């Protein structure tokens, strides 16, 4: 997944989001070992300090664990991961609902569009 | 660090000068060769070869001089200065390393000239006639001077070195002074050179007004009064000259050092 960093938001928040996606979408599966800060920074073409902050944030959120001697790895706590998945899902939906409201759709219309599309995409 | 600077100085200057020195020796050998083959040695090929030799000889002295100036100017005061002056080395070491190598090449050019002359005149007749005569003359002189002969040799060596150091440092100081101006740095350097030379001459003239030196003049006028006086006179003059050059050299060195460490302004 390319690191697509936008210029007008703090980089570290974007890094947190990006790594979250990678964890939740399985690119970094539970228990997997993370590359070093420097390697990650190089991959993303960002300042190692910034990457460090992003990782610290993710650790605070419980998605990453730092081992004293062997670097960082993704948590194996599936409950943590599920919580994060749901949080992101809610964020996406709330963004979607905002836009729909602006376009003037009501609850019923929104629901029917969603159900319809889920059928289509499912095929 | 000074040793390392000397190494790089030598490499940088040797690239240009060694080929010329080699060419001189080769030209001398070739001239000799040609003259041997054509018998009397007074014909066109020898003449051409000898002419070339003279050209190379002049070129060698000119290049030794030019390389000294160019090396100082380009390595310290042009883009290369960005490299040199960010090395963790005191400014005076930069100046001294270039000075020492400049003197080295000055001496080398004389040695090579001497060697090339030997190559050209290496002839059974010449060797048997000329060199023994010179050797005899020198031994006689040494006998006449007695223990003084060592001192005289020392004075001549020191005097030559003092003269070379003085000549090199006055040029470095001129270049450094020229660097102070913002435009027309070459003109400013030439102006500085004239100024510094004029200063040296005026200083010398003033010093000769000192009573001691006056007495010296008197002695000079009545030369040949006795051998002792002549020799004493020689010593006096030599040490005065050495001292004079040394004093001015220190002054020019200090000027150069001050400008390069405190008033550097690389473009």
């Amino acid at each position, binding site marked *: 997944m390319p690191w697509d960093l936008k210029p007008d938001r703090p980089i*570290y928040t974007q890094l947190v989001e990006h790594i979250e996606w990678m964890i939740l979408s399985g690119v970094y599966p539970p228990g997997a070992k993370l590359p070093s800060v420097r390697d990650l920074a*190089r991959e993303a073409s960002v*300042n190692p300090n*910034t990457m460090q902050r992003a990782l610290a944030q993710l650790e605070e959120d419980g998605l990453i664990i730092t081992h004293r001697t062997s670097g960082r790895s993704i948590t194996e706590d599936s409950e943590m991961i599920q919580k994060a998945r749901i949080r992101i899902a809610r964020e996406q939906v709330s963004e979607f609902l905002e836009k729909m409201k602006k376009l003037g759709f009501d609850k019923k219309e929104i629901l029917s569009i969603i159900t319809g599309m889920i059928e289509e995409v499912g095929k | 660090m000074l040793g390392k600077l000397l190494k790089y100085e030598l490499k*940088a200057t040797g690239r240009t000068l060694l080929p010329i020195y080699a060419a001189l020796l080769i030209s001398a050998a070739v001239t000799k060769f040609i003259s041997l083959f054509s018998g009397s040695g007074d014909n066109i090929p020898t003449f051409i070869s000898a002419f070339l030799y003279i050209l190379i000889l002049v070129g060698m002295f000119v290049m030794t001089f030019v390389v000294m100036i160019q090396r100082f100017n380009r390595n310290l005061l042009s883009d290369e200065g960005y490299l040199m*002056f*960010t090395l963790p080395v005191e400014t005076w070491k930069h100046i001294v390393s270039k000075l020492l190598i400049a003197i080295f090449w000055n001496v080398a050019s004389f040695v090579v000239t001497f060697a090339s002359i030997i190559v050209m005149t290496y002839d059974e007749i010449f060797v048997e006639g000329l060199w023994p005569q010179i050797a005899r003359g020198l031994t006689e002189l040494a006998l006449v001077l007695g223990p003084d002969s060592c001192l005289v040799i020392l004075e001549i060596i020191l005097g030559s070195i003092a003269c070379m150091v003085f000549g090199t440092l006055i040029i470095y100081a001129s270049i450094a002074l020229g660097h102070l101006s913002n435009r027309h740095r070459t003109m400013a350097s030439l102006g500085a050179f004239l100024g510094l030379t004029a200063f040296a001459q005026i200083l010398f003239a003033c010093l000769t007004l000192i009573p001691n030196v006056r007495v010296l003049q008197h002695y000079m006028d009545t030369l040949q009064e006795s051998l002792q006086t002549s020799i004493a006179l020689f010593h006096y003059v030599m040490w005065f000259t050495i001292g004079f050059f040394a004093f001015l050299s220190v002054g020019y060195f200090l000027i150069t050092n001050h400008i390069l460490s405190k008033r550097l*302004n690389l473009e």
Partner: protein
Amino acid sequence: MNAILECKGLTKSFGSKKALSDVNLTIERGQIVGLLGPNGSGKTTLIKLANALLTPTSGEIRIAGMKPGIDTKKIVSYLPERNYLNDWMRVHDIIGLFRDFYVDFKPEKAYDMLKRLNINAGDKLKTMSKGTKEKVQLILVMSREAELYLLDEPIGGVDPAARDYILETIISNYNPNATVIISTHLIADVEKVLDHAIFIRDGQVVLSSSVDAIREQGKSVDGLFREVFRC
């Protein structure tokens, strides 16, 4: 002593022209800092002062608490905007020179980077293109384990691929004890890599802020720069 660079009332005049006016700055270790401003704003003057290539007219500048001199030159690695290499040397020779004079120079690193960029160490500098010579200079500067790297327009004359490589090298070289100061007017390219941005105009510091603080206001550093320096 955490600050690697400190300026107090730093002023530099050339005749009647003030290149730097009463500059006050503190830069900490372990940061990548952008010194950003238009041409002629005083960036290069500040960098030259840090390298002892110029002496202040008034005020002071200190590197790791010391006045610029031999001891600071040992810990500062400088990449000037111009080409300062002796043309007659081969790459081998210039590496030898750096090794001779800088204790913190790592030849293996240099050779490694040369190989990555397909530059032959046996080549004469005279035969190289301007872009290649710039890469060689950068490699030499980054192969030193210095405490302060001063890079004056490192990505100016280089192609985009080389630009990426240069930024990658800066990131890889990062260590918490060292600081990199990048002076440039190409801000968008360099923004992601900066911790801190300093805007300088007409010899004065007009802004000194962390990049995060700028972005939290919803602007990129490049965007803010254009606003501040609007013609």
